[in-house]
């Protein structure tokens, strides 16, 4: 299989590490080799946080600019900040308002690079279910509605099941499924 490069971005505390863990577990379940890179330490206190995940036969954990197939962003500005990672034809998923995403200034570039971008109000979905800090799961659910070739909704759901502590399972599934619904509409 060809290498798949994924970049996940957001702010410290938004659950980027958890999102990375779920995707990596899902890939492992499919028998794929995975290599990831995470941010720990000072930036976790609300600064810009970024995770890299690479599927396939790779040595290094970092994605090079211009070579990511997917960018998942939990915050709008962090989505823009990390656009340089995307390769031509890459896909961008952001927690943002579908009406206003993406900013006018970046659209010509995204179009030129044939980058598909989709926004979902992940935080609103999560807040609506009483757990505003779970926007990461809503975004993952939304993502799974479009990227079946990479990982299906069911495969991701199983991975969430594996890495979630039992007391959070019910709510995590609820938010994840709500994000998925939003994507299938």
């Amino acid at each position, binding site marked *: 299989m060809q290498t798949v490069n994924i970049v996940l971005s957001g702010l410290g505390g938004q659950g980027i590490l958890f999102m990375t863990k779920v995707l990596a577990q899902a890939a492992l379940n499919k028998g794929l080799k995975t290599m*990831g890179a995470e941010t720990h330490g000072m930036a976790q206190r609300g600064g810009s946080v970024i995770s890299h995940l690479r599927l396939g036969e790779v*040595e290094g954990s970092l994605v*090079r*600019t211009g070579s990511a197939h997917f960018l998942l962003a939990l915050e709008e500005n962090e989505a823009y900040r990390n656009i*340089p990672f995307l390769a031509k034809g890459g896909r961008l998923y952001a927690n943002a308002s579908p009406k206003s995403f993406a900013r006018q*200034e970046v659209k010509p570039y995204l179009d030129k690079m044939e980058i598909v971008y989709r926004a979902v109000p992940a935080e609103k979905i999560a807040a609506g279910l009483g757990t505003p800090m779970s926007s990461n799961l809503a975004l993952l659910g939304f993502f799974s509605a479009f990227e079946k070739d990479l990982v299906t909704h069911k495969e991701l759901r199983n991975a969430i099941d594996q890495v979630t502590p039992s007391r959070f399972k019910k709510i995590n599934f609820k938010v994840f499924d709500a994000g998925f619904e939003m994507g299938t509409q």
Partner: protein
Amino acid sequence: MMREEIFLGNGAVALGLLESGSQVVTSYPGTPSSEILPEVVRLIKSEGLNTYVEWSTNEKVALDNAFAAAVSGKRAACCMKQVGLNVAADSLMSAAYLGTVGGLVIVSCDDPGPHSSQTEQDTRLMARLAKVPVLDPSNPKEAREMARLAMELSEEFRIPVILRPAIRVCHARQALSWGPLKNNTKKASFEKDPGRWAATPRFRFILHGELNEKLKKIARRFEGLTAHNFHDLEPGKKYPLGIIAGGVPYSVIRDILLEKDRKDIPVLKIGTPYPFPEALADTFMSACEKVLVLEETDTVMEYFLRDRQKVLGRLSGHVPSEGELVPQIVYSLVDKVLKDLGLIPFKGDGNQDALDLVASLDLPVRRPTLCAGCPHRASFFAIRKARPKAIFTSDIGCYTLGLNLGGVDTCLDMGAAITMASGFYHSFDQDQVAQPIVATIGDSTFFHSGTAGLLNAVYNDARFILVILDNEITAMTGMQPTPGLGIRADGSKGKAISLERVVAGCGVDFVEVVDPYDIKAMTKLLKKATEYVNSSTGGIAVIIARHPCVIAYPKEAITERKSVMVTDDCTECSFCLERFECPALYHDEELGRTNINHSLCTQCGVCLQICPKGAIVEA
């Protein structure tokens, strides 16, 4: 019964250490090393091992303890971050001469970037300075193998061995297959030999000779260590350019060359930068006209290469001398070398137009900040209120973020809040200037390096206020227990050390405890402390600002939830946003006033005490 599991790089190190039969593992937390010991604990619990683990009070303490275990014939490991090795340097330099009986592996994690450290220093240089071997893994899988190799080398040659994974190894995730772990049953024994273990300078000279002999033997071993030192030269072929790389830069360049299908550029991978496998490097060099060296963070291998005419790297200006060698940097620097040498360059650029585009957007930079509900925020607010003109010396931990609140003026190294406070005091006092000084230090940092400085300050009659920010945890590095808590690394109960008694034991006569959530009480206490510091019979005043970390202990930290709101009395003065900077407070353009982001608000209620217009009220 092998199973596949995704390991954090630090977990891979932990696994390797236990597979090698480590019976004692000590550590002091620090990014990027902090997860090693918790991973060791997780594995010994799941595998039922009897490995002794401890969070030591600092890195020197950790290394001395592990060294003693190795002297007793056991296998021991000691884990820290690269600047922690500075603290342990005294121990390391001497241990290299004395040697071991069992095995001793020192894991020192580097932080090129730096992401979470005060310097980008390179542990490989410390290894060279101490004259101990160092292994430099390129990914978690190799880190695990090297942990085992390091232990075996250490025991065979009776020398401490350093493993230095860089942050991209420590915080990488990779699937590894592993099986049941066994206890190492080696028993402790100590044969008295004061000539060695308490060697005087004359015998140290002999020990130095022994050490040099060991290094020669190890260097020979490294020449043939094909699992970690290897190249892809074709016999007899000559190349215009070759690359010598180690650690993370090796994995980066390997991926790029594979992706670009560049078999015309051979790579020599070095996993053992010291002692350097010189003959292997000579073979490689003689097949290449030029050789580019890729290594993090400092210049180490580049100096070891003898044919200077051929070498490209930091000294020739081809490789940046600071910062991380991330893939896009390696890509463009190698591309430039290819162009300079008239070779075929890579296709495509590093997405420069996208980088320019993003730069033009002027995106707000999200600086890290103290969490919503963090007790340190309340402390800094009170300190600035009570002593606005003071010099604020501070230290290393979450509370360094007091920078954003104007409550931190200096941060040098662990413990320097206190030592710099006394240094400032004497410098101003010499000129008869009564400069107010308030030092802030966390509980864990105080236990790590605070007492020697405090003893010194008391003994030499310095005058300042020391606020110990006691949140009962080592928070920044991921919530490790402190001696004050009395919970040990494996979760068992230890003896809790009383900060009050330690401070009093350092000779301080003014020690008071306050809950910083009560800003009024803390401000009042700071005023009282000021009087004490300034009175002729006074001295150093220590205030222990005690309130649990809101992340580690959400329930205990906020016992009474207060729902807050901002009224129309808000004049948009921004005082709260600048001086208090709770992430849950923001300026609402539409409403034309400050507002609360309820998904971030922890309902701590501290902000009820801060608005000068009284606009923040209980809902």
